[in-house]
């Protein structure tokens, strides 16, 4: 299996489209960092204006933690669109290229092939989130230094500098799970067809539809919202609460893991039974 996963990784990282996500994050994060480097103090003043009469703000508020949190909040909703570029192509791309005819006439079972593709895809997701963490947290800490993290989720919360790093660790870990669910969805769609465009657009469309439905304040939508995987994706932000609701986080994590497993199982079932006509 390790051999198969290594082969799948060679294929994923041999394609140009794989790097679109890395390039997009590699461009966006430095742009945000540069903008904050020059105008960050004004931004901090603006967001803390309401509290400046009550609190005395001292220390390095425009620090690496603040920027990493800001980047994660800003980009989290868009990263799925980068993930589906690879997820939608991973099975359909082989069908389009006709390479299934080479791949499936080897002494390897179809289950092994699809499992290795799925695991390789998760490794891609991990590497993309790691890249985001490296740029937004690692580089920001180097350039802007450390300090207390100030957040504005429902209320103003200030975390001590030595109480932040572990929160980021778990937030990134949770993000990997969220993005794995997105990857699994596009992976499933990819098993249906023989062209990557459909799964990519289909996955994006479904995510957008679910996000829109979640935003409409109608009772019916509110009732079904907990069953949307998109509802559970942004729960990483709970790690930046003063009192972390571990029950809620675990429930959402299980939901996402369950959806990922379901998507993979259906995709595997389709792939194993599929006639290869391409």
């Amino acid at each position, binding site marked *: 299996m390790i051999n198969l996963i290594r082969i799948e990784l060679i294929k994923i990282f041999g394609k140009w489209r794989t790097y679109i996500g890395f390039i997009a994050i590699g461009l966006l994060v430095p742009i945000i960092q540069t903008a904050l480097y020059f105008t960050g103090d004004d931004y901090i003043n603006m967001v803390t204006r309401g509290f400046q009469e009550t609190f005395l703000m001292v220390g390095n508020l425009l620090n690496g933690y603040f920027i990493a949190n800001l980047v994660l909040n800003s980009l989290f909703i868009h990263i799925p669109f980068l993930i589906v570029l690879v997820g939608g192509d991973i099975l359909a791309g082989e069908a389009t*290229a006709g390479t299934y*005819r080479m791949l*499936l*006439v*080897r*002494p*390897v*079972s179809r289950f092994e092939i699809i499992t290795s593709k799925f695991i390789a895809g998760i490794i891609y997701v991990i590497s993309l989130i790691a890249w985001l963490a490296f740029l937004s947290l690692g580089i920001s800490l180097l350039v802007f230094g450390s300090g207390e993290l100030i957040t504005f989720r429902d209320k103003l919360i200030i975390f001590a500098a030595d109480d932040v790093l572990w929160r980021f660790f778990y937030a990134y870990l949770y993000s990997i799970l969220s993005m794995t669910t997105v990857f699994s969805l596009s992976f499933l769609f990819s098993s249906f067809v023989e062209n990557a465009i459909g799964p990519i657009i289909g996955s994006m469309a479904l995510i957008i539809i679910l996000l829109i439905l979640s935003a409409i304040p109608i009772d019916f939508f509110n009732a079904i919202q907990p069953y949307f995987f998109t509802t559970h994706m942004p729960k990483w932000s709970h790690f930046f609460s003063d009192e972390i609701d571990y029950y809620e986080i675990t429930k959402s994590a299980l939901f996402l893991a369950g959806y990922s497993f379901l998507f993979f199982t259906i995709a595997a079932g389709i792939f194993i039974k599929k*006639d*290869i006509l391409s």
Partner: protein
Amino acid sequence: MNNTIIEISGLTKKFGSLTAVDNLDLKVYKGDIFGFLGPNGAGKSTTIRMLLSLIKPTSGSIKIFGLSVKHDHKKIMRRIGAIVEKPDFYLYLTAYKNLEILGRLSGADISKNKIMEMLELVGLASRYKSKVKTFSHGMKQRLGLAQALLHDPELIILDEPTTGLDPQGMKEIRELILYLSREKGKTIFLSSHILHEIEMIANRMIIINRGKKIVEGNVSELLRSDRMNVFFEVSDPLKAVEVVKEVTGNQDVKSDSNKITLSLTQREISELNRKFVEKGIEVYSIVPVRSLEEYFLKITEGAKND
């Protein structure tokens, strides 16, 4: 000892209302170069895909090396090399990397030397670092052969391996197939829609049309015929036509430029050639012409008469 390598019984594949392969039976024996012949759309590729578990039969059974394709996929595939239709590769990877990946998947211990040896065999050693997207169709076809031979399989399944090749490329592939059969003792299952190609290299063959077997047997026996179409290229076609009328009694002979095509027995070919020379007509070439379509017509007409 059982010498049967492939045994297909009652194989049928339906796509909705279309029956692509209809109750097909065939046997391929060890050491055969087995020609699998039929026009485009006859069901050749569908059969090959079922042999390789790419598609599932609607009914019937396939045994390779005495093992069931349905239940012993891995064991069988370790001993098979195949090209199915046109060879498609990971275009963004080099020829070497493609073979390395496919070699690893074959379960054999494929060394760098082995990969280079295969690339050398198919004449692509100098391009091992080139991405496959820069390859011509012929080069991809040869790389396809390299990947099929990489793990030293006992059975090689080739689906129209000369399609899209120039005459020199076709000749090289034919020579390679003969070399693999004679020198390496491989069993070859070769599909084609060109009768002449099968006639040149196969010892046994089957012809299918619309998914059904039309005829199966020894190539030389099946193609043996009292009369065959022969194409003469001569220096003086008008004079040659008169000679033909005199020898064969056929008054309806026409020439096209310096070529005459006739239906003759072997004895008539020899006699006609002698007469042409006696009458001072130079004979540049005598080529038997036998297309699959003509052969089909002949055997289907024969079946009607029976």
